[in-house]
């Protein structure tokens, strides 16, 4: 891919400062949301205080279903326009999606043990979420294994699209196969005492996810600029001061 693809995307100080400010905003919003949710919600009739786990498990699950669509969007954009930035954004989103999917699985296990009596069951929702996690790990492994840039971008875009196809299966799994995991809740089915905590934490997790994707993309831009600069230096064609 032509080096010019990155020439218009150098990381500049003002953008970095804005990102840092957004990071602080997301952090403060997350801490406040968790404190408010824990403080104002009474123990659930059946679950007791274990219900408080849902303020991290449910938003994490939502983000792990949202992030693969970001991967899908930038993967399609890459295949259409062949811009390296879209490939890097898809990769950053996939890494964050992997982190949230893994977190969702672990939090589900921590919630499942005291409520269901088991850490793990081959339930439809848990299994389909595990499949999603493994697809995302496969996506990241593929990127680590393929050196040729265009081929890596194309292959990972294909895996990214496949991974997004799995998301509706994860979402609908609790309706298609009525196993252990309960069906989706909505504000109509959740006690109002818990809705505000869930909403606040959903937005907090969304802000954190956006921050992570943007920060990882910034790091990827720098990594790529360093790679280009090294190639230029090796070929003796340097002098462009990439990324400065």
């Amino acid at each position, binding site marked *: 891919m032509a080096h010019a693809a990155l020439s218009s995307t150098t990381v500049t100080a003002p953008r970095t400062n804005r990102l840092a400010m957004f990071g602080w905003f997301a952090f403060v919003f997350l801490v406040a949301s*968790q404190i408010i949710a824990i403080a104002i919600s009474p123990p659930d009739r059946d679950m*007791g205080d*274990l219900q408080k786990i849902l303020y991290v498990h449910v938003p994490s699950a939502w983000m792990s279903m949202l992030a693969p669509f970001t991967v899908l969007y930038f993967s399609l954009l890459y295949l259409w326009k062949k811009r390296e930035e879209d490939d890097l954004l898809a990769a950053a989103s996939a890494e964050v999606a992997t982190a949230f999917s893994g977190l969702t699985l*672990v939090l589900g296990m921590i919630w499942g043990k005291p409520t269901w009596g088991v850490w793990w069951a081959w339930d439809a929702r848990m299994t389909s979420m595990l499949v999603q996690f493994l697809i995302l790990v496969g996506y990241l492994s593929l990127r680590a294994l393929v050196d040729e840039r265009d081929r890596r971008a194309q292959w990972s875009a294909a895996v990214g699209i496949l991974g997004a196809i799995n998301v509706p299966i994860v979402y609908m799994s609790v309706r298609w196969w009525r196993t252990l995991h309960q069906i989706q809740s909505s504000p109509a089915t959740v006690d109002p005492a818990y809705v505000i905590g869930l909403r606040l934490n959903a937005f907090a997790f969304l802000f*954190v996810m956006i921050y992570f994707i943007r920060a990882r993309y910034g790091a990827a831009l*720098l*990594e790529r600029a360093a790679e280009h600069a*090294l190639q230029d*230096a090796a070929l003796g064609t340097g002098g462009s*001061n990439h990324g400065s």
Partner: protein
Amino acid sequence: MEASNLLFVSAAYAVAWAMFIGYFVHVRRATSRARALLDSVNSGSLR
């Protein structure tokens, strides 16, 4: 809060924050590493 419930709730929040902090550190390290490499190439020390 019951002691056993407190244990599971605390574990859940600890895991969530471990992921947030861990991923943040991972991104910061990747950024610093790339910036250091870029600086050394641009300054000519790796040419």
